[in-house]
C-alpha cells in the first residue's frame, strides 16, 4: 500500500479526503462530496465555465493549459455527441499522484467528470486508467456503480432531466496513450498512435465528436474549486497558476512522497525541508523538476525557483507532471541520461520517423558511450540528433525524449567528456545494460 506523507507546509485541498475512507460513497458525502456537482447542475454551464476560468486552474497533465478555457472551446451546438475523457494513463516516469487519487478519492474523479460533462453538454464520460492500475480500476468501478445506485449517474442525475453516464476502463501498457489523441485512438480500439492537429479534440475528438480531455488530477480538483469558490482557490497559488499541485518527490531524498503544496512553492525548500533533504547526508547534484521529460536543473538553479508553470518555464525547464526527481552526487548523469532515453525509445510508437529513429540512435549512442566506447564526436552528435527531433513529430513524445537529453549534455558536458577515451564510468554500477 503506498505510504501517505504529510508536512506542515502542505495545503490540503485535493488530498483533503486521503486516508479518511472516502472511497466509500457515504463517507465521501459526509465529507462534502457531490454538493459541487449539484450546485453546478443548478447554476448551469456558463457559470461553471466562468468559475473554472476565474480559478486559474491549469491542466495537471503537463502542458498547463487553462481548464476553463479548454472547456469553453467546445462548440455549444454539435451534430455529433460530445464526450468527456479523463486521462488517468499516468505513465510519465517520476509521477504517481493519480495513483493516490484513484485509491483514496475515486468519487472526486467521478464528480469532476460529471461537472465537466455539465459544462460542455456531454452525456457520456470515460475514465481511462493505465493497464497496470487494475486494483485502482476495481476501486473506480465500485465507486461508479455506487454513484449509479444513488442516481448521481444515469438518465436523470440528481433527480433532474439531465443525463450523464460514465464508462471506466484501462489500457494495456503504453506511455504514448497518455497523449490525448493517442488516448482517443486506444479508446476506439486501435493502436495508440497520435492524430494530427488541428482539428483539436474540442472540435473533432472521440468518435469524431467534440471531446474535452483532462488529466485525472485536474478533474479531481474541479469539485474542490466549485466547493471553495474560484477566487479562494486562485488565491492559494501564484499569479496565473491557481491552487495547489500534487508534487511527487522521488529519488535521493529522505522522505519521498506525494505532497500537496501551493503552486509557486520553492523547489529548494521542497527538497530540503518538505522531503527531508538528500538521503544519507550526500550532496544534491541535479533535479528533474516535472517528470522524466523535463530538462534537468542544477542545484544553483533551484535556489529561488517557484514551482509553477511560468517560473519553471523561465528557468528553461517545465513543471510537467509535478514529478520531482532528486539526484545525488554519487549518480552518473550519463547513466541517468541513458536510462531516460531508453524509456522513450521503448515507448516511441514509431509513427513519426524523427522520434522512432532519433530515440533509437540516442539510446545506442548513450549506451555505447556509458560502456566506455564513446568518441568525442558523439557528444555533439547526441545534441544534433536531439535538436533535430524537436518539433518534428505529431505528438510531444519526440520532444519529451529530446529535451531532457539536451539538458544532460549541455549541463553535464564535462561528465560526458570524462567517460571518453575508453575510460569506464567513474561510478561504474549498472554498465551491464545491453547495447541493442
Amino acid at each position, binding site marked *: 500500500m503506498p505510504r501517505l506523507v504529510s508536512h506542515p507546509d502542505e495545503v490540503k485541498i485535493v488530498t483533503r479526503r486521503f486516508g479518511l475512507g472516502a472511497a466509500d460513497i457515504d463517507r465521501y458525502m459526509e465529507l462534502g462530496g457531490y454538493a459541487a456537482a449539484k450546485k453546478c447542475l443548478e447554476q448551469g454551464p456558463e457559470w461553471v465555465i466562468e468559475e473554472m476560468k476565474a480559478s486559474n486552474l491549469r491542466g495537471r497533465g503537463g502542458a498547463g493549459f487553462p481548464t476553463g478555457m479548454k472547456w469553453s472551446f467546445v462548440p455549444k451546438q454539435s451534430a455529433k455527441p460530445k464526450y468527456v475523457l479523463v486521462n488517468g494513463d499516468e505513465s510519465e516516469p517520476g509521477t504517481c499522484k493519480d495513483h493516490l487519487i484513484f485509491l483514496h478519492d475515486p468519487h472526486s474523479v467521478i464528480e469532476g467528470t460529471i461537472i465537466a460533462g455539465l459544462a460542455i453538454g456531454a452525456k457520456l464520460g470515460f475514465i481511462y486508467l493505465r493497464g*497496470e492500475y487494475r486494483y485502482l480500476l476495481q476501486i473506480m468501478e465500485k465507486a461508479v456503480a455506487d454513484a449509479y445506485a444513488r442516481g448521481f449517474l444515469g438518465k436523470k442525475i440528481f433527480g433532474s432531466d439531465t443525463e450523464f453516464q460514465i464508462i471506466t476502463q484501462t489500457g494495456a501498457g503504453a506511455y504514448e496513450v497518455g497523449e490525448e489523441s493517442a488516448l482517443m485512438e486506444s479508446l476506439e*480500439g486501435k493502436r495508440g498512435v497520435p492524430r494530427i492537429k488541428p482539428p483539436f479534440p474540442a472540435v473533432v475528438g472521440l468518435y469524431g465528436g467534440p471531446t474535452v480531455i483532462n488529466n485525472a488530477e485536474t478533474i479531481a480538483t474541479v469539485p474542490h474549486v466549485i466547493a471553495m469558490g474560484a477566487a479562494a482557490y486562485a488565491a492559494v497559488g501564484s499569479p496565473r497558476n491557481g491552487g495547489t499541485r500534487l508534487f511527487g518527490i522521488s529519488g535521493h531524498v529522505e522522505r519521498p512522497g506525494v505532497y500537496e503544496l501551493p503552486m509557486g512553492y520553492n523547489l529548494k525548500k521542497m527538497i530540503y525541508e518538505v522531503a527531508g533533504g538528500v538521503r544519507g547526508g550526500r550532496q544534491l547534484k541535479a533535479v528533474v523538476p516535472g517528470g522524466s521529460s523535463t530538462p534537468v536543473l542544477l542545484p544553483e538553479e533551484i535556489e529561488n525557483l517557484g514551482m509553477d508553470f511560468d517560473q519553471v518555464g523561465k528557468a528553461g525547464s517545465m513543471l510537467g507532471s509535478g514529478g520531482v526527481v532528486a539526484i545525488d552526487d554519487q549518480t552518473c548523469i550519463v547513466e541517468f541520461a541513458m536510462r531516460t532515453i531508453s*524509456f522513450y525509445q521503448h515507448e516511441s510508437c514509431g509513427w513519426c520517423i524523427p522520434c522512432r529513429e532519433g530515440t533509437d540512435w540516442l539510446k545506442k549512442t548513450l549506451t555505447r558511450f556509458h560502456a566506455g566506447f564513446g568518441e568525442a564526436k558523439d557528444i555533439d552528435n547526441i545534441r544534433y540528433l536531439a535538436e533535430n527531433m524537436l518539433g518534428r513529430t505529431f505528438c510531444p513524445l519526440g520532444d519529451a525524449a529530446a529535451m531532457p537529453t539536451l539538458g544532460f549534455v549541455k549541463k553535464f558536458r564535462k561528465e560526458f567528456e570524462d567517460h571518453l577515451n575508453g575510460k569506464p564510468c567513474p561510478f561504474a554500477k549498472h554498465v551491464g545494460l545491453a547495447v541493442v
Partner: protein
Amino acid sequence: MSQETMSLFSPQLAARLDALVEKYPRRRSALVPMLLYAQDEVGYLSDAVVAEVAARIGITELEVRNVATYYSMLRFKPAGKYNVQVCTNISCMLRGGYEILERFQQELGIGPKGVTADGLFSLEEVECIGACCWAPAIQVNYDFHDELKPELVPGIVDSYRGKAQAEGGSSHA
C-alpha cells in the same frame, strides 16, 4: 456472441465480454480491455483467443493482432503463473531497482523474459509502473510491492510459492 457453449472462456468471462461490447457507443472500443481480460484468464493471446476476440468484436484476426502488438502488457507466449515485473526506470533505479532485479534473477534462476521450469514464475524488467514515490517497486501480476530491499525478495518469492501450493493443495491432499 450468444453461442456461449462454443466459447473458449469460462462462462463468467464470456458473460462479462458479452456485456463489454454492449457498453460502448461502438463495439470496437471493447477491444483493448477484452484482450486484457482474455489474457488474464488464458495466460496469453493464443491463436484461439485472437480468433474468438475477432469474432466477438466483428473485425479480422489481423486487425486484432495489429492492435495487440502495440500494447506492452499483451503477450503471445505464456508467462509464469506469477509474472514478476521489476521497474528500473529513473526513480526506481536511483533507489536500487537494478539490485532488486538482480536478486530476483538469483532467487528464480532466470533472466529477464525467462520463465521458471515449473512455470510458476516469469521475470520482466519493466518501465515506470507509477509507484515512483515508493521506490523501488515491482508488480507481481497486478499486485504492487513497494519500498523494497534486496533482502525482502526471497520472502516475496516464498509467499507466492505458498499461494500456489495453497491453491493447488486441495487436489493433492
